[in-house]
């Protein structure tokens, strides 16, 4: 506050006649600047339009534009455009998806994986978030939270690699099991749905943890005390007080983890195997292997986008809230 006050004091000095004008003071006195700002800010309406210009341009051009373009390309029979050939409108790309098991199986596998990983992440992080919010002293919460945050700043590739070292045939887990005499030969964890799950949960757990933590932290302690006074046992208190009040955190956490976990490409390539191919790899194939398959890749991406957004929309509806403020 004091900082801003001194700022305003400076401003007063700048604008005051007689004093030596600062850059901003000089700017305000400058005739050309006055003329320009006079026209631009003449009415509140003009100011609003000016303020709205870049954000609206960005939202429609950069956020919505690529998505619409992707849908549109999905309806063309050839893209990027070839010289001397006018792309024709077609539904074949969309139909291809429903005609081949090679496409449908990875698609449903991805949804099943993401659903499973989201559920497991919720079950793992709920007690962690509860412990943080309710059992750690206020003064120490930041430290405990920071301990969890640090690994999440590290990128996707580095963390995926760390999981490869953990689960490989010569990895730490197999070494530990072997030295304990539990196994003779290494267990092949890698290149399965299991290793993929360990990796994806490692990457996404924070997106569950933070919404849960902020929801649980807001529940006043005396609610639980009141419930206890009225004779509710630990389980009833959890089921009737804590769980309903943390519903918003569960809803946003699950939405984020589900959406984000369907979108990983490098992690399934590195941790998964031929029996755990996900749809991201299918889509990527159209852009890497054969350059001419863009329309098919675009159509498939659109199908996946519609499916994931529809599922999360349905989920949020079931949880009794709309998507507003999902990011907070």
């Amino acid at each position, binding site marked *: 506050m004091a*900082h*801003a006050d001194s*700022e305003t004091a400076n*401003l007063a000095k700048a604008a005051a006649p007689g004093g030596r004008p600062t850059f*901003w003071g000089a*700017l*305000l006195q400058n005739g050309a600047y006055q003329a320009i*700002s006079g026209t631009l800010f003449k009415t509140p309406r003009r*100011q609003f339009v000016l303020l*709205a210009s*870049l*954000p609206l341009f*960005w*939202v*429609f051009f*950069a*956020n919505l*534009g*690529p*998505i619409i373009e*992707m849908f549109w390309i999905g309806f063309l029979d050839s893209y990027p455009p070839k010289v001397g050939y006018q792309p024709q409108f077609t539904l074949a790309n969309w139909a291809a998806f429903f005609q081949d098991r090679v496409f449908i199986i990875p698609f449903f596998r991805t949804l099943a994986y993401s659903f499973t990983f989201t559920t497991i992440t919720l079950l*793992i992080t709920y*007690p*962690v978030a*509860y412990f943080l919010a309710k*059992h750690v002293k206020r003064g120490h919460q930041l430290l*405990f939270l920071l301990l*969890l*945050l640090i*690994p999440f*700043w*590290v*990128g*996707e*590739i*580095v963390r995926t*690699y*760390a999981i*490869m*070292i953990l689960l*490989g045939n*010569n*990895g*730490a887990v197999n070494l530990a099991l072997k030295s304990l005499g539990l196994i003779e030969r290494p267990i092949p964890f890698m290149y399965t749905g299991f290793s993929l799950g360990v990796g994806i949960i*490692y990457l996404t757990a924070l997106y569950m943890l933070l919404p849960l933590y902020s929801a649980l932290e807001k529940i006043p302690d005396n609610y639980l005390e009141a419930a206890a006074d009225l004779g509710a046992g*630990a389980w009833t208190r959890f089921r009737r007080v804590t769980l309903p009040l943390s519903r918003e955190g569960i809803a946003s956490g699950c939405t984020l983890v589900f959406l*984000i976990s369907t*979108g*990983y*490409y*490098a992690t399934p390539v590195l941790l998964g195997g031929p029996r755990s191919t996900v749809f991201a790899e299918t889509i*990527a194939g159209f*852009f890497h292997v054969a350059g001419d398959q863009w329309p098919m*890749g*675009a159509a498939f*991406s659109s199908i996946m*986008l519609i499916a*994931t957004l529809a599922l999360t929309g349905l989920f949020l509806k079931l949880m009794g809230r709309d*998507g507003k403020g999902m990011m*907070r």
Partner: protein
Amino acid sequence: MTRHTRILMSIIYWAFVAYLFVPLALMVTMGFKDSKFIGFPIRSWTFDWYIAVAQDTQVLAVFGYSMAIAISTTVLSLIIGTWMAAFLGPNTFRGKAIIFALACLPAVIPGIISAIALRIFARLIDIEPGMMAIILGHTVHNVPFVALVVMARLSTQPKSHIEAARDLGADSIVAFFRVTLPYLKPALIGAGIFCMLLSFDDFVRAFFLGGYQPTLPVLIFAKLRSGMSPEINAISTIVLIMTAILGLWAERSMRRLNKGS
């Protein structure tokens, strides 16, 4: 809450911390192994892999390339994100909820779809795959994060600040640069560092939008596909340390902001 559940929960917490840290610790350890083969046990130790990385001109060039992309992305994201927040924060207008949802869209769209859509879009607006395309992709992805952080900070600024500035003769532009911007500074530092981390660590957008020159995550990915090597561990460890320092700095800046102004 009974004593047993309390103990159980603290065990779960520490197990979770172990799950997060053990893989990274193993990865760091492996970078000091005196052998080409990744895997346990480690019989002898060396520092050679770090020396090899320091002398690898390709890695150094790629590092600089990733850094340049991260810095450009951060500058663009901060400008557009702050502008977005200044527009969406204080104003109410018809259709605001829709604009707000669209503004947040890139943050929740699955990464692969966002990358593919941007790849097609870059072709449409005639940007060749490469640095410009990656910067565009990363900026699209980062703007929502900046906007949300700045909006949160903006909502705590007292109206009297701007009014005082206006009374003293500043117009909207000068009031913004001299009063609002200094007030936003901690939020901008925090958001800026996170933008750099998001951009520097991003794989999927850089992979699909990049040309022949790889970014650092793309290079690590390519090296991993041709086989694990302790050199990758050394590179990753350097990235890890840098990331942790930057992250802690950002966190400190953001926390100071939460304690009140």
